[in-house]
């Protein structure tokens, strides 16, 4: 018999909410089951590894590598399911205990009201003691039931905590290491790289012939090295680890790949491309001559032969132009071919200076109508002029003069009018992908932080291409000459990965072509004033997809002059039109030449571009 009047504290304290417990159970069951499914998926896939990758002594343990994770996932899922079931049972108990508690509490309050009405307080009058005892009994049973529910749940937790785990109730859960997110796709790529580069090294150890045979018999693998290359830094580390003989074997036996493989030392790329040139030029000439002879004999060419003939004409032209370009190399301005692909059109990049040692590399990107066959000599002359001007500027500015430039005809430029290709952004977008690869390759090869020490100078449609490229790949300085227009996806200078204040634009007053690319056909107005700076009238509007003028205030580039200027007492000519190197082209033809262009010697644009591409204002102030 209990003399004390029952009250609410005699009831169990039930804080959990059944719904939350069930939700936790569901989440645990589903998550652990999901993990088990993924682990089994991995295990099933991995079970095929022995059939495709086997090297006794090296791969013996590989097929079993997934056993442990699958077993762990199974164990966890089993524990998760058991705990989830126990939690659901516990949630039922929560519901039941809560319901009974509510009923019991109502009865308690009713009894306490009766006791109060009869004038009693916590001392139970005799006539209510039986009821009070009965309620105490119910409360005791309910507490017991609640305690049992928790004990049952604890037992399952304990049983499912794993054999290795130390069960210490009350311990916090923060002792396990956190899940470190891993880029598994990157790990898979690492496998791919790991398999490719050592293979090349081993083949190289057997000499260029073995490499050449392998390349001939595995053209897809060779092409894949260029289409989906390993990271430049990976290649650079691998290349550094090769012996001299291995490198030489790769340079001569695998030149078409090595000459373009980002990460390979530029001097070796140059050797490889020189080798390609020396092998392919006579070969292409001989085949071209043979087909020409067939044509002369009126033997009809098959469709394949006609296609080959066209390709050979391009190839011979490009290789011959590169050969002439390299012949103009001097000790002071050494030229090397640092990229060369013989597709249609052939593409190439010629370095002026030493890319392996230069403290700064400036990549010059040309515009429409530029091909290796027709323009690499003049474009390299322009790049050479730029390097010469940079070295001169470096002397005046007191900075390192070991700089290099690259005449990069690394993309399929738009055809000249009447083609309307120049009004679209398609070729610029494709070129931007290639330019990004070259720039990122330079960073990786040199071990430079992304964008550091790299400048881009672009001309005409090259500005369309370059801005799309540096919108994603950082460079230190960007100079846009005679822009044929910027794509709207690069709405202003803030959209490129170039430090603020390091983006420059310029167009000569006498250039009436650049604006055509932007869709605006303009003509000079007859003027009685300064003929070097004629007024313009717009006579037609074309549907260009890249209409933005980087000189417009809204585009936020900094501007410099490409017109006649006197700087520090020295006269510089303004560009006479749109062309970048008319004087250099005339010189190559052996003609005197009258006009000068943006990258010709003695022009204000060349002088100013030299400064901006070194990270200085045309006035000689270092840009922070």
């Amino acid at each position, binding site marked *: 018999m209990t003399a004390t009047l029952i009250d609410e504290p005699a009831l169990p304290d039930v804080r959990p909410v059944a719904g939350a417990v069930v939700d936790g*159970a569901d989440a645990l069951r589903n998550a652990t089951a999901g993990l088990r499914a*993924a682990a089994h998926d991995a295990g099933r896939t*991995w079970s095929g590894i022995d059939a495709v990758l086997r090297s006794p002594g090296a791969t013996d343990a590989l097929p079993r590598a997934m056993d442990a994770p699958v077993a762990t996932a199974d164990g966890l899922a089993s524990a998760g399911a058991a705990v989830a079931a126990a939690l659901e049972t516990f949630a039922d108990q929560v519901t039941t205990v809560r319901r009974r508690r509510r009923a019991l509490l109502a009865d308690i309050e009713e009894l306490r009201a009766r006791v109060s009405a009869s004038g009693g307080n916590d001392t139970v009058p005799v006539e209510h003691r039986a009821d009070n005892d009965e309620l105490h009994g119910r409360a005791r049973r309910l507490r017991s039931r609640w305690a049992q529910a928790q004990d049952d749940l604890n037992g399952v937790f304990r049983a499912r905590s794993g054999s290795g785990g130390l069960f210490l109730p009350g311990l916090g859960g923060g002792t396990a290491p956190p899940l470190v997110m891993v880029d598994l796709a990157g790990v*898979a790529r690492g496998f791919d790289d790991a398999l490719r580069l050592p293979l090349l090294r081993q083949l190289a150890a057997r000499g260029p012939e*073995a490499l050449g045979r392998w390349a001939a018999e595995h053209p897809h693998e060779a092409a894949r090295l260029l289409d989906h290359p390993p990271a430049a830094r990976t290649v650079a580390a691998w290349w550094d680890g090769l012996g001299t003989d291995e490198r030489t074997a790769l340079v001569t036996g695998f030149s078409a790949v090595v000459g373009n493989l980002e990460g390979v030392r530029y001097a070796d790329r140059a050797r490889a491309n020189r080798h390609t040139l020396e092998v392919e030029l006579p070969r292409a000439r001989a085949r071209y001559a043979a087909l020409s002879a067939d044509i002369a004999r009126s033997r009809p060419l098959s469709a394949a032969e006609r296609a080959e003939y066209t390709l050979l004409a391009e190839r011979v032209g490009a290789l011959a132009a590169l050969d002439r370009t390299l012949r103009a190399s001097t000790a002071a301005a050494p030229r090397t071919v640092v990229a060369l692909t013989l597709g249609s059109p052939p593409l190439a990049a010629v370095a002026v200076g030493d890319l392996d040692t230069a403290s700064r590399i400036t990549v010059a990107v040309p515009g429409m109508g530029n091909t290796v066959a027709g323009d690499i000599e003049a474009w390299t002359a322009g790049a050479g002029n730029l390097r010469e001007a940079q070295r001169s500027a470096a002397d005046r500015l007191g900075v390192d003069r070991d700089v290099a430039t690259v005449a990069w005809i690394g993309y399929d430029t738009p055809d000249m009018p009447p083609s309307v290709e120049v009004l679209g952004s398609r070729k610029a977008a494709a070129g931007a992908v290639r330019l990004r690869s070259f720039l990122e390759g330079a960073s990786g090869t040199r071990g430079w932080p992304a964008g550091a020490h790299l400048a881009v100078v672009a001309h005409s449609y090259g500005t369309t291409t370059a801005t799309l490229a540096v919108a994603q790949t950082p460079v230190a300085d960007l100079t846009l000459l005679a822009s044929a227009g910027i794509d709207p996806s690069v709405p202003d200078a803030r959209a490129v990965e170039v430090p603020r204040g390091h983006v420059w634009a310029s167009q000569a007053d006498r250039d009436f072509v650049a604006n055509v690319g932007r869709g605006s056909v303009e003509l000079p107005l007859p003027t009685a004033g300064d003929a070097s700076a004629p007024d313009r009238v717009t006579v037609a509007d074309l549907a260009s997809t890249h209409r933005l003028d980087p000189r417009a205030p809204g585009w936020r580039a900094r501007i410099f002059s490409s017109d006649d200027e006197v700087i520090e007492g020295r006269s510089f000519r303004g560009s006479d039109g749109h062309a970048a190197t008319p004087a250099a082209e005339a010189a190559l033809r052996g003609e005197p030449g009258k006009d000068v262009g943006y990258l010709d010697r003695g022009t204000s644009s060349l002088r100013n571009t030299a400064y901006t591409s070194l990270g200085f204002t045309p006035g000689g102030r270092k840009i922070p």
Partner: protein
Amino acid sequence: MAQARMAQGSTAQNSTAQGSTAQGWHVDVAGAQAVVERTARAGTTAQAAALDVDRALQAVVGSLAGTASAGAAQSFRAARRDDAPAVVRGVVAAVTAAAAVADAVAEADAEMADRTTAAGSSRGAGVR
């Protein structure tokens, strides 16, 4: 595109499988790459599931706050919390191990490339 190329390449490569098996080693680059990539994808799924497991364990502990089971739940979580990351680590370790043996495989591949080509085989320079 690369996969397509690899698949094409592997057809010819598989034709030399007999010779390579006799040497006790075998590598089908396209096949191995496919296994590794599919395993890596499953690993990525496992990684997402591992995050879900961690959140679920947390939810269970939270739902039992204020009960005599809260401590047991926390201990269960502590004991099981590393299981899911261990699964992910296992997948990563397998794929990484495959990369680690690639060097040896490549060496064997190169030997086969040298030998089969020198013998005038028209079936390809190695099982690659």
